[in-house]
């Protein structure tokens, strides 16, 4: 409480306290999305029972693996209260690079691409921290940058994998009728989840920066490093997503960026993670990713005009963001 005469602030400390407590009633935040997932899947399968058949589930799982990896990566910038709008473009760029390099570099193409894309993510983080730039502007700029580079490098068309596909073919297979890509995504998310719950940086520093950055700064948390790591990791996950995509499509596509960005953000918020950061984890991201996958595939199965997909995403995104927003965390809304 400050002594000096200042124009009045709104909201009393008591109200903020109550609001915070109400918002974190875990049951509501966890149960809601899960119920939505089961409800949506159920609704589609009533009209199309094959949706949840063994084959249907297999298809869903393959599709889900892409969204899972992308959303897991997007979770990190969102958890510190920022956002990465360039993830779609980075993924697209990654698919192009991998498709171009596999024939020439063989197994080395995979780590090369991952390093390159993670470096692009690192660049995002450095720009944001060095210039104290809002993340949405920095990543909108790099979105343009890498989209253009993708188009030039691929000559604006899909790049087929003309050799070396063997290196990643296993990702497109099945183990006991479960897609390997799905298992891969589960393993990756589990590792990230482990970092988020078992390491000091993940469990404490990350969420502190998202919930109360000033308090984190004043407790000695190296906020700049946390931010740069988040964006570098988001880059890495974009690269992992690219890996799975190339394995599934046997080609790299520079234009896939457009359709990947929104699902990644939507999956994070729909799962119940606050868009303002500081809450949630991999379990919620998983549920959100599954919901988005069901919506994506359900639209096709139910014969709804697929062109409506973009509209649906746009609406879901804004609605989910509005519901999970912690308004007390924002001062003046811009």
């Amino acid at each position, binding site marked *: 409480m400050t002594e000096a005469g200042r124009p009045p602030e709104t909201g009393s400390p008591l109200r903020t306290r109550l609001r915070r407590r109400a918002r974190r009633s875990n049951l509501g935040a966890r149960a809601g999305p899960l119920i939505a997932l089961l409800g949506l899947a159920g609704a589609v399968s009533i009209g199309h029972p094959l949706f949840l058949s063994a084959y249907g589930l297999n298809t869903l799982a393959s599709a889900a693996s892409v969204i899972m990896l992308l959303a897991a990566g997007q979770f990190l910038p969102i958890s510190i209260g920022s956002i990465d709008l360039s993830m779609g473009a980075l993924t697209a760029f990654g698919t192009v690079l991998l498709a171009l390099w596999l024939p020439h570099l063989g197994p080395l193409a995979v780590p090369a691409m991952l390093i390159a894309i993670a470096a692009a993510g690192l660049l995002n983080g450095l720009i944001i921290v060095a210039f104290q*730039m*809002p993340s949405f502007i920095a990543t909108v700029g790099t979105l*343009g940058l890498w989209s253009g580079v993708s188009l030039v490098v691929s000559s604006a068309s899909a790049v087929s994998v003309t050799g070396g596909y063997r290196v990643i073919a296993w990702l497109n297979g099945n183990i006991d009728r479960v897609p390997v890509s799905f298992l891969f995504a589960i393993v990756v998310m589990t590792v990230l989840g482990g970092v988020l719950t078992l390491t000091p940086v993940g469990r404490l520093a990350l969420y502190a920066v998202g919930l109360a950055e000033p308090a984190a700064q004043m407790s000695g948390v190296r906020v700049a490093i946390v931010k740069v790591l988040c964006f570098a990791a988001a880059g890495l996950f974009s690269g992992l997503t690219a890996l799975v995509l190339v394995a599934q499509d046997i080609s790299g596509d520079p234009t896939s960026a457009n359709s990947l960005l929104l699902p990644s953000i939507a999956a994070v918020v729909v799962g119940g993670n606050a868009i303002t950061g500081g809450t949630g984890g991999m379990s919620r991201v998983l549920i959100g990713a599954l919901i988005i996958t069901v919506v994506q595939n359900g639209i096709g199965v139910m014969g709804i005009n697929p062109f409506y997909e973009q509209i649906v995403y746009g609406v879901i995104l804004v609605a989910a963001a509005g519901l999970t927003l912690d308004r007390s965390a924002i001062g003046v809304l811009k």
Partner: protein
Amino acid sequence: MAARLQSLGATGARFLSDQAPLLALLGIVIGLTIATPSFLSARNLVVVGTEASVLLVAAVGQTFVILLGSIDLSTEGVMATSSMVVALLVANDRTHLSLGAAGILLTVAVGGGFGLVNGTVHAVGRIPSFMVTLGTWYVGIGIATVLFAGQTPVIQSALTTGLAQTRVLGVPPLVFIAAVSAAIGIVLLNWTRFGRYILTIGGNEQLAQLAGVPVTRYKILAFSLAGAMNALAGILATAEIGNGSVTVGTGMVFATIASVVVGGTPLTGGRGGIWNTVIGVLILTSIADGMILAGTGPQIQQSVQGAVVVIAVAASSWALRKRLRVVK
């Protein structure tokens, strides 16, 4: 004597930094003319003027939103939808409608509607503007895709295509439309409550609110104006190519933001204006045109514009950096 020289120097430095965008434009034009003499040819100037016009119209709308301290990422979506809508309303080869000028006005109104939704969801729903307009960007593309329905509507209305393809005083009419839009923007900012309150809200929203300014109302109005301008830009771009297109606005998000920021209007709002945007638009189109003349492909445009956004914002906010500043 020394003191007078010093204050002269300070005034000089301030003049230079205020006029930096204009000086940059002069520098670029001179540089490009030296590199490719055809830059200043009448034909090339018409091309530059046409490109600049479409961008200027959209950038004028974006300027108002950025002056508030917010952002409008839905430009491309609104342009896509308006492209389809106008192509289907005026004389075309798919529908039997032929609404002419009324069709154009209706389309602008549709754009205004998009902006209205943006502003309302943002100001009343209290969702950050980048989030809302990100959603409308995709909704706009989606609606345009639905209207596209697999068949490109070719425009047969001479009025509409004439906006880009006829010549009045040597330039297409859309150049005049853009100039008038900019002029209206300047008038709004300097002589109307709408414009002055936008600047006030951008300067300090809390204080404006305390003084009784109906902040929500003016935010919604600003976004609505931006939506209408985006639609107008979409119509002009559609006139150029002669048919409805979902991709008519590709890259415009970066281009409008870059124009506004490069022209000297910071993202934090409250400062700058339409004239700044005009200069920014000219700078951007000159660079783009110069790159094309030099033989670089159109794809790299997006990259350059993306990089320009980052560089321009970094440069303009360099002085604001503080040790413990919290920026999300």
